[in-house]
């Protein structure tokens, strides 16, 4: 709340503070003014003393001393106004440190008198304004504030002896200072400045301490005055007004005027008068209130009596309604929230059962809903129940012939499908409720369980598998018949965990128990292999077992169930196989060594053949030729013919050896499998063949773009043989046509070489690829009969197959594949 005191005193206080600030500022400004004034006076004084001393030296002392010492001598201590005045003021500065009095020049004799930048500016100012010779300004020296007074010193004619041409100057002067400093001046020139600088801070500080003392006294006086006003105001006005206000507020708050105590005050001033007037007003109000209250109380009593009668009546009515409503609500919510479908029927006089209502669950059991069937007969609601015992049952219950009925039934139509538990009961004359609970899932589960049990029994029997169960808590073990058979003990025996463990092979017990314990702790399925000593014959049998752990909802393991297999037979078989495998590997290793030896033998055989067999042949040929040449005149025609035959046979023999070696080389050569351009290979061979037989008209048709994986060197030999054969067997044709390409035989790709040559009888096709097998007389088509054997060997080494189709004089086609496996 803002009191009068705050409303009055706050502005008053603000005004007082503002006034104080104004006063303080005024006194401060005044003190500053005084300070500046004092400094100005001090500066003027110092300047005047300075000038006076110099004037005295130059006008009085200088001429006298000059006369005494002679014209050419110069004693600065007595003759230089500068020297004297500086010396005097050095003494003054001891009392007034920081005070500066000096004469400076832009070209002084003594470097100590060199002008500062501020002073140079002042010199410049005076040179530009010849009429002005004095100037006061505030300057900064070493960060200190000074008031400086400059006075221009202009050259006069009498000064020129010492400051003009150095030739005219006294010899001692020149000797002491040289010929540059202070010389070469002209009349009227500003030769230098008298500078007086007074530090402002020193003066201002002195003044400020004086002023602040005065200001403090004034502030104390103001504070005292202000406090006095506050106390007076509180006593005279504020305290009394707030008492009165408190009083009136209390009355307003209680609203009981009778309890009020009048203010006790003397009638002295306006506030006292106001108090008394309030008291009188309250007294009158108190009287009026008393009479009014009396009348209100009488009227209230009348109304209360009438009201009580009415209230009682209403309460009874409400209670009855509430009970009814609650009861109905209860039953409605039961019906509505029931998961069971409910149908309500009424039996009409013509014994039709008409649907009068359903609950939400009834909607769920049918696809189309039953709500829209209200008003229809029960036959329309469940069309497939027409003329059944079930409907008759409903009617009997409705007529009261039968009490409540309960039964299970399957039902199916286009709306409803399932297995239901049905309850029918009468709720009033001719009114029945039919409740249907969908038990389809339960029925299915029952059925599945039956099927599972059956299948499990079948499976365990078929698998010769024993089933066991261990109730951990009761330590009871249940075995099926096959378990007893497997362990060779009578099924009458009572099984326990200990009994089972006793039958196990002593070496396996520890491990199996550890595994079983782990399965139970981790609640995971376990698989173990162990041996048992069979009960009836003491035979060692291998058992494979599986265990599955069953825990209750708290995670406590209750049961372990599982199966046992007798795997002894399998173990034996495995052992047998392992033994056989080892033997087989040994045999393979032996055979490999034998083969390697045979191969080496074959190689050395081939080597000697190529060397030793051909040498004698060459001899036979050579000597035959020698005979023919050297004894030609003694041999008759027939002898020469015989010798020719000998030579021809030798050639054939050499060719045979050569071809046999080639075949052997093909067999022994190391396979180097790389991508092979089959088209390019065939084309290069065809070109060579044509070049070798320029007189033959050969047409090669080679399919472009064929490529495969294989040993190019070996494939070249094979293709050379096949294409060479084609060329050979078409030699009786005027125009030979030889094709090479890729075709499909029984959906598998196969290369083919086709010619239009002599062909052969397919009856001999099987002999075709044997060594030294020939289809034609050598006189018809020359050859050793080794070429195709070589080809077959090469194709086989590639993992492929070769075969041929032909007809006599109709040409032949050779097919081959590479790498049948891929």
């Amino acid at each position: 709340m803002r009191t009068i005191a705050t409303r009055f005193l706050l502005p008053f206080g603000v005004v007082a503070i503002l006034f104080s600030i104004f006063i303080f500022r005024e006194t401060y400004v005044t003190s500053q003014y005084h300070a500046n004034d004092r400094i100005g006076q001090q500066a003027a004084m110092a300047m005047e003393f300075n000038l006076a001393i110099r004037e005295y030296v130059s006008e009085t002392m200088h001429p006298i001393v000059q006369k005494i010492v002679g014209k050419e001598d110069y004693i600065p201590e007595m003759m230089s106004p500068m020297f004297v005045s500086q010396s005097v003021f050095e003494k003054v500065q001891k009392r007034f440190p920081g005070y500066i009095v000096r004469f400076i020049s832009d070209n002084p004799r003594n470097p100590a008198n060199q002008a500062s930048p501020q002073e140079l500016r002042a010199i410049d100012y005076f040179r530009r304004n010849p009429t002005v010779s004095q100037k006061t300004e505030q300057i900064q020296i070493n960060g200190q504030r000074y008031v400086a007074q400059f006075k221009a010193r202009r050259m006069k004619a009498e000064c020129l002896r010492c400051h003009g041409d150095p030739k005219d100057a006294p010899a001692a002067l020149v000797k002491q200072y040289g010929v540059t400093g202070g010389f070469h001046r002209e009349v009227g020139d500003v030769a230098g400045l008298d500078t007086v600088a007074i530090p402002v801070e020193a003066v201002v500080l002195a003044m400020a301490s004086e002023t602040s003392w005065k200001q403090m006294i004034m502030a104390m006086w103001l504070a005292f005055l202000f406090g006095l006003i506050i106390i007076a105001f509180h006593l005279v006005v504020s305290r009394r007004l707030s008492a009165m206000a408190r009083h009136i507020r209390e009355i307003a708050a209680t609203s009981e005027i009778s309890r009020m105590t009048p203010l006790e005050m003397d009638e002295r001033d306006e506030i006292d008068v106001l108090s008394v007037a309030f008291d009188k007003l309250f007294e009158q109000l108190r009287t009026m209130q008393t009479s009014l209250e009396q009348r209100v109380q009488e009227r209230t009593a009348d109304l209360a009596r009438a009201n009580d009668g009415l209230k009682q009546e209403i309460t009874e009515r409400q209670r009855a309604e509430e009970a009814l409503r609650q009861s109905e609500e209860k039953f409605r919510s039961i019906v509505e929230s029931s998961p069971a479908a409910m149908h309500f029927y009424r039996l009409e006089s013509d014994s039709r059962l008409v649907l009068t209502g359903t609950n939400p669950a009834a909607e769920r059991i049918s696809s189309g809903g039953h709500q829209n069937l209200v008003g229809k007969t029960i036959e329309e609601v469940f069309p497939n129940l027409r003329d059944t015992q079930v409907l008759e049952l409903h009617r009997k219950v409705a007529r009261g012939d039968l009490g409540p009925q309960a039964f299970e039934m399957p039902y199916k139509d286009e709306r409803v499908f399932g297995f239901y538990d049905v309850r029918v009961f009468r709720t009033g004359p001719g009114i029945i409720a039919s409740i249907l609970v969908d038990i389809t899932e339960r029925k299915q589960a029952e059925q599945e369980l039956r099927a599972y049990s059956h299948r499990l029994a079948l499976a365990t029997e078929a698998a010769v598998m024993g089933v066991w169960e261990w109730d951990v808590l009761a330590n009871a073990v249940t075995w099926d018949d096959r378990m007893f058979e497997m362990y060779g003990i009578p099924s009458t025996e009572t099984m326990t965990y200990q009994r089972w463990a006793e039958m196990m092979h002593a070496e396996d017990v520890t491990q199996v128990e550890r595994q079983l314990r782990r399965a139970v702790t981790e609640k995971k399925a376990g698989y173990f292999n162990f041996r048992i000593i069979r009960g009836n014959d003491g035979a060692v049998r291998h058992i494979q077992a599986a265990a599955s752990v069953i825990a209750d909802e708290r995670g406590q393991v209750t049961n372990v169930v599982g199966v046992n297999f007798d795997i002894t037979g399998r173990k034996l078989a495995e052992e047998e196989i392992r033994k056989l495998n080892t033997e087989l590997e040994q045999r393979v290793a032996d055979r490999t060594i034998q083969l390697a030896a045979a191969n080496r033998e074959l190689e050395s055989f081939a080597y000697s053949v190529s060397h030793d067999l051909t040498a004698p042949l060459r001899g036979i040929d050579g000597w035959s030729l020698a005979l023919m040449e050297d004894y030609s005149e003694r041999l008759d025609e027939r002898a020469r013919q015989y010798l020719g035959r000998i030579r021809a046979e030798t050639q054939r023999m050499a060719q045979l050896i050569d071809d046999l070696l080639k075949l052997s080389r093909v067999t022994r050569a190391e396979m180097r499998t790389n991508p092979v351009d089959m088209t390019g290979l065939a084309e290069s061979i065809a070109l060579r063949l044509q070049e070798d037989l320029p007189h033959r008209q050969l047409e090669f048709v080679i399919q472009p773009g064929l490529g495969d994986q294989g040993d190019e060197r070996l494939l070249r030999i094979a293709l050379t043989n096949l294409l060479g054969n084609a060329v050979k067997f078409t030699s009786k044709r005027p125009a030979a046509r030889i094709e090479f390409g890729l075709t499909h035989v029984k959906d598998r790709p196969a290369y083919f070489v086709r010619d239009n040559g002599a062909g052969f009888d397919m009856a001999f096709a099987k002999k075709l690829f044997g060594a030294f097998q020939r289809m034609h007389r050598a006189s018809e088509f020359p050859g050793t009969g080794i070429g195709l054997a070589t080809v077959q060997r090469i194709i086989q080494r590639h993992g492929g197959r070769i075969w041929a189709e032909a007809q006599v004089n109709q040409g032949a086609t050779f097919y081959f594949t590479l790498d049948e496996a891929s």
Partner: protein
Amino acid sequence: MKGTTILLVEDTADDEHLVKRVFTQINLINNLMVVRDGAEALDYLHGTGVHAKRDTTQMPAVVFLDLKLPKVSGLEVLRRIRADDRTKLLPVVILSSSQEEQDLIHSYHLGANSYIHKPVDFTEFTEAIQQLCFYWLLLNELPLPKWKP
């Protein structure tokens, strides 16, 4: 100065006579020197054993070397020819009945200058010898001999 002799290393008497016959026909029989095994060939070339008195500054123009030789095999002879400074650059032509890949590879590895397969047909053989003589005696050039007496 280039030699004009051809050294034939041949153990088969038949082949030796037939070759000699060819050389007679082409009038080069005086240029032919025949040795009958590997050891004698090396003796001849290095001036040792029965050929100790031979002037080894006179080297043949070419050696015709058979691979199948008694005592020291043809390949061993070749290896030793190449191992000796005096005969390191001597042209050696392998003259063999063998067409085995292994023999070719070994010969060229050991530094054979040429490998000729002896054909069975003697007419062809004669032509081959003629061509070889023509080539190695007339066409082929050799660096100056570096071997010392």
